[in-house]
């Protein structure tokens, strides 16, 4: 008479999952001055808002700011491309129980064989258990990114407004004699009267 042996093995691991997310957009500036000059003014505006000046491998100026929650904002002032990204390592705890079955008709030590089977399937079971935790971590990271985007948008908007206003003052000076400037570059409402 044969007898089947069933052995269940439970496993638990703390794993670090790496999750990333990002969005790309563009700031568009009127070509009031040359692209280089517009880019320089925009870089200055962003520098005043805490962005650091870097250069990419094409030699273009890229303004970079590390925001809260590991969010990085990069603005290429040559192309106007804005890249907001987040990357985080999140610790998750995964658990699984795997059962192995062996018959004493076929195995000399059925208990050991059942245990061996259970342990052999443990890695795959833990990987499977990790998938929903990884998805939850990704959602957490995406939520942080969206929160940061809500702060970045008005900041970039102010930078573009300031850039446009400053470029316009420079352009006005090149057209003729500036008679008056009303309003301010900060809020982007300004009237310049130029005698030509």
């Amino acid at each position, binding site marked *: 008479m044969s007898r089947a042996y069933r052995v269940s093995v439970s496993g638990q691991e703390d794993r670090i999952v790496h999750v990333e997310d990002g969005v790309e957009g563009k700031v568009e500036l009127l070509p009031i001055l040359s692209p280089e000059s517009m880019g320089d003014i925009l870089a200055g505006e962003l520098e005043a808002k805490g962005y650091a000046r870097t250069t990419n491998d094409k030699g273009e100026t890229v303004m970079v700011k590390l925001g809260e929650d590991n969010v990085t904002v990069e603005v290429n002032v040559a192309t106007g491309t804005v890249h907001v990204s987040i990357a985080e390592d999140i610790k998750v705890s995964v658990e699984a129980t795997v059962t192995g079955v062996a018959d004493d008709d076929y195995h000399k030590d059925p208990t050991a064989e059942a245990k061996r089977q259970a342990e052999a399937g443990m890695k795959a079971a833990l990987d499977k258990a990790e998938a929903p935790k990884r998805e939850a971590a990704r959602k957490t990271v995406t939520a942080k990114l969206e929160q940061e985007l809500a702060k970045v948008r008005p900041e970039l908007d102010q930078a573009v407004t300031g850039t446009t206003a400053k470029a316009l003052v420079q352009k006005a000076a090149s057209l003729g004699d500036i008679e008056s400037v009303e309003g301010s570059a900060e809020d982007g409402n300004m009237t*310049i009267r130029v005698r030509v």
Partner: protein
Amino acid sequence: MAHVILTITNINGKRELQIGYESDSDAMPHEHDQDHKAAVDAVVGKGTKTTRAGGSDGGSGQLKNAPIPIPISQKG
């Protein structure tokens, strides 16, 4: 003396640039239009798409065109 009036407005992040032109009192309407267009080209370049907001107004011996608004597109 002629004047170029540059007005930039920012309402909830939507920016608009208006380029107005006041010509000399003795300028003819067609001269005024030409000069206004030249002023727009000088500010934003010839390739930029602009929108005409209105026509000439000959009040008080001075031509004064309605400004040409140029919306500045923006992505956030």
